């Protein structure tokens, strides 16, 4: 049985357990609500997946989200007549630009990705303070159209969910049907072999960082408009949830292993826990410990699965 199938079963079992206590939880409406609530985490997990596949990690995603979100909110407050579609494109570009900073440092200077993104994590947060002067952008300063987009319903689903579905479809296409997607796997699976097959390892990593940055940027707009507020600390610490979603989804931190389905299921796993806790009357303060425990269990489980199947060719040669 594949890892994704096991995870899907665990997810269904968890939903089943919760609905024993509270039958309404498993109703389609409620589950769609959970999906909608998890949309942003799903989109971020997809971006993180691309980065992790190439044997890197992007810890700056939440800060990128917050900075882009603040830029969008301030743009909207200053120029309310700006079309929202344009704002969404701007958000994507700002996010991609911030991601490319990470990418260039990893690509051109060979700095370990964890150091780069730990650095940009704090830098981006600080920049939010600089541009906003520590002020909040509140709901009344945002135009109605700005706040309406994530909630607008199309075919019975809010736009927020649609954006997530579109991102899932696009990522699935990119990862499984394009040379770039295969390059992500090749670079993470065995960088040396990837070079010999003509793949530019550094550029592929750069592209992965730009991709994760662009997705963070989109989420920046979605987050700020959904919660109708922008300030320095939004989504603080969310980068860990994103990494957790990926690890739970079976994406190997050592690179080269992972799937879109895994990232989505991993994010949904956390989303279901978050939404189920109040239903079964557990204090939300439990959430952090539970996701921590979930990461550890998932990484133990993944390590076993990876060892069993034998990951990639030439693994031995590479470690010497």
């Amino acid at each position: 049985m594949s890892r994704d199938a096991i995870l899907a079963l665990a997810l269904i079992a968890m939903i089943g357990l919760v609905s024993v206590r509270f039958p309404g939880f498993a109703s389609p409406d409620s589950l769609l609500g959970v999906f909608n609530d998890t949309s942003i985490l799903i989109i971020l997990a997809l971006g993180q997946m691309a980065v992790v596949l190439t044997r890197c990690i992007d810890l700056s995603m939440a800060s990128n989200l917050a900075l882009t979100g603040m830029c969008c909110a301030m743009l909207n407050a200053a120029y309310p007549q700006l079309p929202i579609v344009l704002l969404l494109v701007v958000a994507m570009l700002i996010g991609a630009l911030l991601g490319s900073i990470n990418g260039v440092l990893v690509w051109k200077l060979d700095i370990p990705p964890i150091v780069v993104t730990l650095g940009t994590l704090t830098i981006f947060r600080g920049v939010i303070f600089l541009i906003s002067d520590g002020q909040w952008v509140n709901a009344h300063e945002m135009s109605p159209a700005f706040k309406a987009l994530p909630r607008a319903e199309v075919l019975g689903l809010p736009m927020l969910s649609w954006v997530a579905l579109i991102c899932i479809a696009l990522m699935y296409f990119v990862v499984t049907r394009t040379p770039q997607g295969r390059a992500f796997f090749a670079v993470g699976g065995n960088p040396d072999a990837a070079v010999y097959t003509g793949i530019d390892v550094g550029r592929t990593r750069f592209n992965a960082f730009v991709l994760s940055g662009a997705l963070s940027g989109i989420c920046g707009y979605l987050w700020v408009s959904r919660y109708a507020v922008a300030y320095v600390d939004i989504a603080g610490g969310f980068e860990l949830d994103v990494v957790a979603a990926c690890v739970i989804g079976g994406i190997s931190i050592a690179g080269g292993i992972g799937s879109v389905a895994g990232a989505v299921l991993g994010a949904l796993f956390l989303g279901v826990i978050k939404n189920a806790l109040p239903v079964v009357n557990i204090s939300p303060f439990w959430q952090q410990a539970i996701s921590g425990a979930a990461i550890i269990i998932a990484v133990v489980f993944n390590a076993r699965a990876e060892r069993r199947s034998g990951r990639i060719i030439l693994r031995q040669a590479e470690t010497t």
Partner: protein
Amino acid sequence: MTDVERQTELPDRLRSPLFRLMASWEFLLLIVAVLIFFLNTQASPYFLDPWNLSDATYNFTEKAIIAFAMALVIIAGEIDLSVASIIALVSTCMGYAVQLGADTVTLIAVAVVIGAACGAFNGILVAGLGLPSIVVTIGTLSLFRGIAYIVLGDQAYSGYPESFAFFGQGYVWWVITVEMVLFAVFALIFYVLLHRTSFGRSVIAIGNNPTASVFSGIRVARVKFMLFMLTGVMSAVAAICLTSRLGSTRPSIAVGWELEIVTMVVLGGVNILGGSGTIPGVVIAAIVMGMVTFGLGLLNVPGIVMSIFVGLLLIAVIALPIIIRRLRQRLSG
């Protein structure tokens, strides 16, 4: 390593010891430290007051105590991002013990035991099961602080015994604080441990080549386990100092410290990929970072803007030597 690099590197070893000392990372850092000290005296007339300087050391002593152990972990090729969460959990447990009427000695014992247990948990997962330390410690980062949140929620513990305040607020002599003494003592202990014992040599060997270390008879897993446990204990020491200084415990205590501690270690010249680094470097880096934050604080720069400096420092410190090496290569050939 390419042939070009080898040619440019070999002659360095033939130069005089004095030149080598002056070209070392630690010497460079020391110059930076002196420069910042001088800039600080120019920036504010209050900087040179001995009591002010004594207060300034609180900016780095607690973090540096963890950074010494973290340096060893990073030299061995691993990383521990859970240190700040260990502080939170240890502090919470101490607070809980106080509610049960524990005295200062019991509190210390509780702290050390919990810290060692947290470190051992990381150690078992990393060294015992061979899992990547970055993921494991991101997980325990969440887990340890999560437990603190479960216990405390939005509450806080206080009411620590008066004698407990000694660690974070006490003075040994004149302006010399207890924390300064702890900082100096641990710096010495870790200096001896890393540079003067076979354990230290094996830590460096593991970071350079874990496979070769196994074949040369080093118990790699055991050394790594001990390093994680050591980091847990040092986090407990820092938790004692911080809790004693603040006099209360919230679950958000020391949030984000892991980043500053890693920055401190990397700034101290420890290779983030493992294999090299010195304790004197970390000591100077700690003082540099403490003085930068203190100086900016005197200039009324808000904390979040200071974090931009910390982030830039972290990236610049690693990027600069790489850029310089590239330029030198380009010039020489």
